[in-house]
């Protein structure tokens, strides 16, 4: 197994642990449907994905996953309150032009919102910036700055600050160390590479 695959498996497993069996789940930015398929297989979830890209939707369909090609905000606006048991925003948030609007809408259509993101406050990222004077790059965000990902890097402190001012309740949090496997309890904004949150309004 290559390193990114191991990393993917760990955060998918944590997300899946939070998903109730047979619940109705929405995955924002579902990509090629790996998480959708995993939730359908492991939790018998009714999992729907949204993505902008045709090839990604086609890959989901090929897997037998349910996917909708379109804008995630437009999609969520077409559903009544709490239509989904859980909305998942895994490695998507930092790529959005308007994360606050998406989080607000996700908390309206979902009873819970799971968010997973790379912690840009991680010491290695800080060191890169400090010593090399370069944009941090890592296993998930491998691209140069001009290739645009991520557009909105956030740290754990940034995110918790956001939840506090928006009065969003954090019901669960998991911080993973630099290996993205072992949990990190001490000074996470400095020592955690990856963060997962479970939120309710």
């Amino acid at each position, binding site marked *: 197994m290559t390193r990114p695959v191991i990393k993917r498996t760990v955060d998918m497993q944590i997300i899946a642990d939070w998903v109730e069996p047979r619940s*109705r789940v929405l995955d924002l930015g579902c990509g090629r449907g790996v998480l959708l398929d995993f939730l359908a297989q492991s939790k018998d979830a*009714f999992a*729907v994905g949204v993505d902008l890209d*045709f*090839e990604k*939707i*086609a*890959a*989901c*369909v*090929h*897997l*037998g*996953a*349910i*996917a*909708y*090609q*379109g804008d995630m905000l437009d*999609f969520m606006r*077409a*559903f*009544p309150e709490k*239509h989904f048991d859980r909305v998942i925003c895994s490695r998507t948030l930092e790529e959005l032009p308007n994360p606050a609007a998406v989080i607000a809408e996700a908390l309206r259509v979902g009873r819970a919102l799971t968010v997973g993101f790379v912690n840009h406050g991680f010491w290695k990222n800080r060191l890169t910036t400090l010593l090399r004077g370069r944009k941090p790059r890592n296993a998930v965000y491998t691209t140069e700055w001009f290739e645009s990902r991520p557009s909105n890097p956030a740290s754990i402190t940034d995110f918790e600050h956001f939840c506090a001012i928006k009065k969003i309740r954090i019901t669960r949090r998991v911080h993973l160390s630099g290996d993205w496997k072992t949990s990190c309890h001490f000074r996470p904004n400095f020592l955690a590479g990856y963060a997962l949150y479970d939120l309710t309004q």
Partner: protein
Amino acid sequence: MNEAEIPALTPAAPAAPGEVGLVEPRDFVCSEPFTFESGQVLPGFTLRYETYGRLNAARDNAVLICHALSGDHHCAGIYSPDDRKPGWWNNLIGPGKAVDTSKFFVLCINCLGGCQGSTGPSSIDPRTGRPFGVTFPFVTIRDMVRAQKLLCDHLGLASLYAITGGSMGGMQVLQWPIEFPGFVKKILPMATTARESAQAIAFNEVGRQAIMQDPAWNHGDYPRDGGPRVGLAIARMMAHITYLSDASMDRKFGRRKKETAAAGAYNFDVQFEVESYLRHQGESFINRFDANSYLYITRALDHFDLAAAHGSLEQAFAPIEAETLCVGFTSDWLFPPEQNREVVLALLRAGKRASYAELTTDLGHDSFLLESPQLYGLVRGFLEKA
């Protein structure tokens, strides 16, 4: 029914690789009375159809193809070795193609009310010995689907593995799992809508007026080889524009002029290539389509409204057991992407398994017919995921 009634599917000549090859249409004659949604009754009817591929032992590998307004049952294959014009969805259907006839038993039926061999207004009314004309019962999308089901039963199909079609075909695809929920496993509507917009109804009405204002229409009473040829051709010319797009017409024709058009000629002869193309479309249409059928089928399109028929789209879709993949096309301005999206959103709100994919094309409503490896891959992926 017995085995002998199952169509033998061996073509008379070996098929070229990837092609359905030689095909021939068959007729299903139903001699039971058929009551239309309007309450009107026909003592019986005929449906013309074609099949490709083999029905499996479990009789559950059938894929039904539903044609659009001006289409017919001939969706793949050729009628003779030197036939240069294969069926209308030949690019999608065949051995090894997206709708793989080496796996599926493919069935396509000329719709009730049509004029390519199925019973419609141009058929002879046995009571009078003359064509029905406008005495033919009003036909709806639901009537077409109910008649198709009788043919499926006649063929002994245990279920339909999938149903697909674009435009009016897509409407039938949506009606099927509502009408016969347990009979359909997958539906794949394309470039369609759960109800036409005012604009689409408006275009149909212009077509109908062109026909009905032609004196040769004669209130629908005309001989089989006559009728409102001018009106029907104009209806077709106008409708054909709605199947294309500004960009695709510009690419195909631009402002190019016919070689025969004298430069700067101040007259109304054909000058632009697009005029010549539309006139050709109109003229070839009158030789294969019946004007009264055009009136009936466009009316069926206009009346189709799943939300009104069931209270809401969610209620309409409530009985559906099938899984859906709906495909929209960015440049389709007749049944635009939003109307296809609305179908999927309503299915999801109703708790059904439904996906939506959108192809970026500049070819307009007819995009669903065009050669697109992306579309082929999508259709194959949906059909072959058990």
